[in-house]
């Protein structure tokens, strides 16, 4: 098992570095903190890592057993088109998550948790870099209209609101978003990467192992603080309650489920040897894992609240509270967290806009469902644009103005961030000038909120 390093051509490498200066302004702080928090871990490096020995033969689908493709040109046009879309979407998620994490990073409850998230952001940057490397190393002109310059620029110019997948267009409102996002959304990432390890496109398969290794830590960055928050909640330390954790899970889990794609789909990926599982199969395994996580969080809560209980007694108590709905030794069902029904608050896939409640109950009237959602989602999220757009689409579906399919296509309603601001065209990440280390370029706004979104 060994990896080799590869760098992007300088103009793209510098573009990513420039992007990093804007969206990970604490990067230097991370490097400073590294020896203290991650002693002996190799220093972070912005590069692509390719695994040296991956299976050389296609592992599933119609071409199983044939050699993997080393160039996009040898792939069937539809296959290459599919893969190209997946790489671009993957790149968008990597850069997108950094833009989200950045918003609330400063509110971390401990220095350790903050540095963990910061390291994870740096690794997401590397993942985005890895995907750009796949895009510029090969010739995708048969399936992509854009030049390599425009492809890279287009991805780096995306912002929260103009990314490809819904989960990456939602703002973070508190540090709870950072950790729940890592626990739930990065877990979907783990699934996608694991599946793509078998990709019929060898450069993709080679890109996955190191990303997956890093992903294991990203999940810990979410789950470990979440477990600690459950302890705080159990001890009635007021800054976080189980309700907050539950509502944040409700905000993210539906978006995580939608990242698997439509429940009826995924066959094309399997046929082309790009992934071994169809969407519904991977999604249901994910649901089972999230259920385990939730059981685990509840046990952490119960044992922190009632430290004298023996293991078996605590397990029995959890079952009674969760399954029988009883209040036992002062622990009520609402003190624990639950898995939202997989059809709750969905906007894509089979259950899109079907008005399914948290516990799987069905609603007939728009107003009733809107009220139900209001009770189950974080208040800061309700006040935001994503929820408003969702409600508006739902209202139109319920009133027969558009079909659920049309509404799905519209979500996320992409925010065009270009236009009105006079400096919007001034920010271009891919440029010919060399990078000046840590020095903002003359005339460059330090926070280019208005970069042109090329979608």
């Amino acid at each position, binding site marked *: 098992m060994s990896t080799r390093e590869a760098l992007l051509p300088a103009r793209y490498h510098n573009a990513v570095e420039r992007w990093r200066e804007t969206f990970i302004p604490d990067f230097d702080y991370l490097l400073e903190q590294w020896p203290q928090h991650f002693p002996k871990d190799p220093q972070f490096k912005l590069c692509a890592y390719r695994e040296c020995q991956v299976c050389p033969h296609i592992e599933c689908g119609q071409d199983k057993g044939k050699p993997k493709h080393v160039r996009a040109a040898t792939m069937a046009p539809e296959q290459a088109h599919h893969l190209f879309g997946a790489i671009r979407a993957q790149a968008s998620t990597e850069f997108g998550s950094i833009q989200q994490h950045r918003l609330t990073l400063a509110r971390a409850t401990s220095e350790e948790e903050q540095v963990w998230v910061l390291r994870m952001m740096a690794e997401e940057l590397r993942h985005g870099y890895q995907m750009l490397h796949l895009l510029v190393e090969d010739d995708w002109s048969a399936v992509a209209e854009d030049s390599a310059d425009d492809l890279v620029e287009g991805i780096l110019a995306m912002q929260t609101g103009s990314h490809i997948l819904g989960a990456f267009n939602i703002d973070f409102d508190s540090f709870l978003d950072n950790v729940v996002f890592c626990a739930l959304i990065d877990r979907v990432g783990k699934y996608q990467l694991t599946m793509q390890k078998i990709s019929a496109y060898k450069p993709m398969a080679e890109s996955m192992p190191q990303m997956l290794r890093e992903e294991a830590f990203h999940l810990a960055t979410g789950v470990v603080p979440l477990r600690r928050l459950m302890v705080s909640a159990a001890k009635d330390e007021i800054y976080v309650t189980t309700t907050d954790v539950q509502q944040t899970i409700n905000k993210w889990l539906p978006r995580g489920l939608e990242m698997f794609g439509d429940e009826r789909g995924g066959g094309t990926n399997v046929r082309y040897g790009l992934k071994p599982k169809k969407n519904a199969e991977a999604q249901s395994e994910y649901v089972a894992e999230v259920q385990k996580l939730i*059981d685990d969080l509840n046990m952490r809560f119960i044992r922190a609240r009632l430290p004298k209980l023996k293991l078996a007694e605590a397990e029995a108590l959890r079952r009674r509270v969760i399954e029988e709905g009883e209040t036992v030794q002062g622990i009520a069902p609402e003190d624990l967290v639950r898995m939202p029904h997989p059809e709750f608050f969905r906007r894509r896939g089979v259950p899109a806009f079907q008005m399914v409640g948290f516990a799987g109950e069905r609603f007939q009237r728009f107003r009733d469902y809107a009220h139900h959602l209001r009770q189950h989602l974080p208040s800061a999220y309700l006040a935001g644009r994503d929820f408003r757009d969702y409600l508006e689409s739902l209202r139109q579906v319920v009133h027969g103005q558009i079909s659920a399919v049309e509404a799905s296509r519209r979500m996320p309603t992409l925010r065009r961030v270009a236009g009105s601001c006079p400096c919007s065209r001034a920010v271009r990440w891919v440029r010919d000038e060399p990078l000046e280390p840590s020095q903002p370029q003359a005339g460059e706004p330090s926070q280019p909120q208005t970069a042109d979104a090329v979608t």
Partner: protein
Amino acid sequence: MDDSTDGVRVRALDTIDIGAVTRIDERIGGRYRPEVWERRIGYYLRRDPEAALVAEIDGEVAGFMLGEVRAGEFGLEEPTGWIEVLGVDPDHQGKAVGRRLAEAMLEHFRARGARTVRTLVDETMGDVAGFFERLGFEPATLKPYVKSLA
């Protein structure tokens, strides 16, 4: 990671297994130590996640093993695989869970370029030494010394 006819499935440890590992440790040693496992598992997943393994029987975690490849310790320059922590649920001991975990771990160490695997066994914990001997481990010349600083 791999399935086998004995019903034991070894796979990579995931953060959702922290509860199961804590539980096995508690069942073996009688102490509930969630913070210890949160910290340790955070550490191993960061360093070498492929050397953090669990074994499942019927979908339930029955055992775990944590290790790492290191070089340059105790004058051992070549990369060496270290098995550092292991535990098998008392209900599942004697079902080859430990053996299967060790096999998967050794395979990983080999892939990482290690030519030797080492571990330290606390003799007061008795049973672990016998297990390693059955797996072909031999007493090493490297002898641990200790002195209290209290």
